[in-house]
């Protein structure tokens, strides 16, 4: 391959069998100032979350709040405006817009709005559906029992340094380029 067509980035994947090795790998990558990696895990471990996000909360909470406020407003408007459309005089001086009975509808709309927006937020921020994720990330060993760190576009110049960091942290396998794509064995 000529120098003009040589790729400037490369896939690198490390597989870990131990959580502490994975955490060491992430820590060393962060300290080396290397970015652009994705960590994969078979379960949510808050050690991983802490080391990556350092206590930064997920923005999904803003979706929940927006949904809940939207739901509450919808419940209030739906009940009040529809009653106001036919402002009949009710016996006993009862109000046309009665907030106490409407509170039930408003409450249900608040919860429904919050749940629907949370779902939307989770879909957006999790990057779902994830059918088009890089093939190096699509590794069935990770949903089983292993952990992984994947670079889908590491600078070729950093390849050796990254490989050394990942191997030094205790990776049981480090692959690059086309080797990062794991062929699924016939489990069934």
């Amino acid at each position: 391959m000529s120098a003009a067509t040589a790729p400037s980035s490369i896939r690198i994947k490390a597989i870990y069998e131990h959580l502490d090795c994975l955490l060491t790998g992430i820590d060393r990558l962060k300290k080396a100032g290397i970015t652009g990696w994705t960590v994969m895990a078979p379960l949510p471990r808050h050690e991983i979350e802490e080391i990556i996000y350092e206590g930064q909360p997920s923005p999904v909470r803003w979706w929940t709040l927006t949904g809940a406020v939207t739901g509450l407003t919808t419940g209030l408007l739906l009940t009040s405006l529809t009653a106001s459309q036919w402002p009949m005089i009710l016996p006993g001086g009862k109000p046309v817009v009665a907030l106490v009975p409407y509170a039930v509808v408003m409450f249900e709309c608040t919860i429904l709005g919050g749940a629907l927006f949370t779902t939307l937020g989770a879909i957006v921020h999790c990057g779902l559906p994830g059918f088009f994720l890089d093939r190096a990330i699509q590794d069935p060993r990770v949903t089983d029992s292993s952990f992984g760190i994947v670079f889908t576009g590491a600078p070729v110049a950093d390849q050796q340094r990254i490989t050394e960091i990942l191997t030094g942290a205790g990776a049981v396998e480090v692959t690059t380029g086309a080797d990062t794509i794991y062929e699924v064995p016939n489990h069934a």
Partner: protein
Amino acid sequence: MATDVYTSGEPNRPDSYGAANRDIIRVLLKPSVAYLALLATSISVMLFGGWCWYMQIRWGMGVANITHPTMWGVYIVTFVFWVGIGHAGTLISAILFLVRSRWRTGVYRASEAMTVFAVMTALLFPVLHLGRVWQNYWFFPYPNQRQLWMNFKSPLMWDVFAISTYFTVSAIFFYVGLVPDIAIFRDHSKGLVRRIYGLLSLGWRGTHRQWHHYMAAYGFFAALAAPLVLSVHSVVSWDFAMANTAGWHSTIFPPYFVAGAILSGCAMVISLLMPMTYAFNWHKYVNTWHFENLAKMCVLTSAILSYAYGMEYFVGWYSQNPYEQAIFFWRADPSADYGWAFYLMVFCNCLAPLPWYITKVRRNPWALFIIAAIINVGMWMERFNIIVSSLAHNFDPATWWFYWPSWVEWGILAGSAGWFCTWFLLFCKTLPAVAITEIKEMIPPPVKGSLEAK
């Protein structure tokens, strides 16, 4: 480093994450003869219920024995029963998640499935009760041709909002929890099955970004679902309590209904999970520890319910309202039309759970299964007792009537059980009935040595 929840006081766990996967996956898509026989029975009963419904549509509501003054009969009784059954799932999955109760892990997925299927079953009954099912769109909140909207001050309208919200939130919560587990199934299957699970898992890969936002969203779902557990059956109770009918018009109804719903839901979880645990050999994941805790929940809610039954009588007596007193004394009269229903209810819901105060009984599988079944019968009888007796013996003695369900109504009741069991059986063989990812969280993580990263 996290403190692991793996303690010696809890049941054995699988040795590794991979072992947990294999244990749950091995029961999938390989139906035994017994399973197929059970599924065929459920489908047959469901079809019989469907045929009874056809008879009702064909010949009209006259084939059901609901008539003035008992316009709410088995259909509404069974509607309330199934909504109640649907309570335990969200209680176990949401409230126990928020309080970090560890025993929920083994049982919450099946309980959530039970909730979704029970509410699906409950939702059939307003349509069945409607008679003219082709006009079921009248249920939905939209204005008529004169721009007149429905009355949002009506408890029946509240119920539409409460049940539909509960169903939507429970179904979302159920599915969101399933996504990472379906991804495990996808990676352990091939061909068409792999494609189907691939679609259902939404391409989940367990990246750090996915887990971070997923866990945040899951916590919010739990926080949103928790108040729903208390609100749904409170709203259902207002269908009755807001009416000026003797025996219904009481402020004690919301807590009374919620306690009853949790009792029936937990009893149904025991009834469903006990045979499943033995059939699939899942003792590592669901065992005495879980059943004992469910039994304790039943004992607590049974005590609350017994108090509520007693308090109803006290309120009737203390109010000095002749109509209130009349209905409660009539209900408890053994020689009256529904005296037997009252005493059966008291036996099943107040007395039958008492042996569960004894540890040995709580840990005996047969005792657990039989008492749970008795509670389920009792909870149906409770709704029958409340709804039918108050209507059959209302303010005007000239209209008093003895209501007894017709064979069509019994058939539809049986069909609803068949419908519920069919869904549940299909779920057991196609989706993870035990939450694999949460089971993995209970297993100590594989570590090589001390952590360098701080």
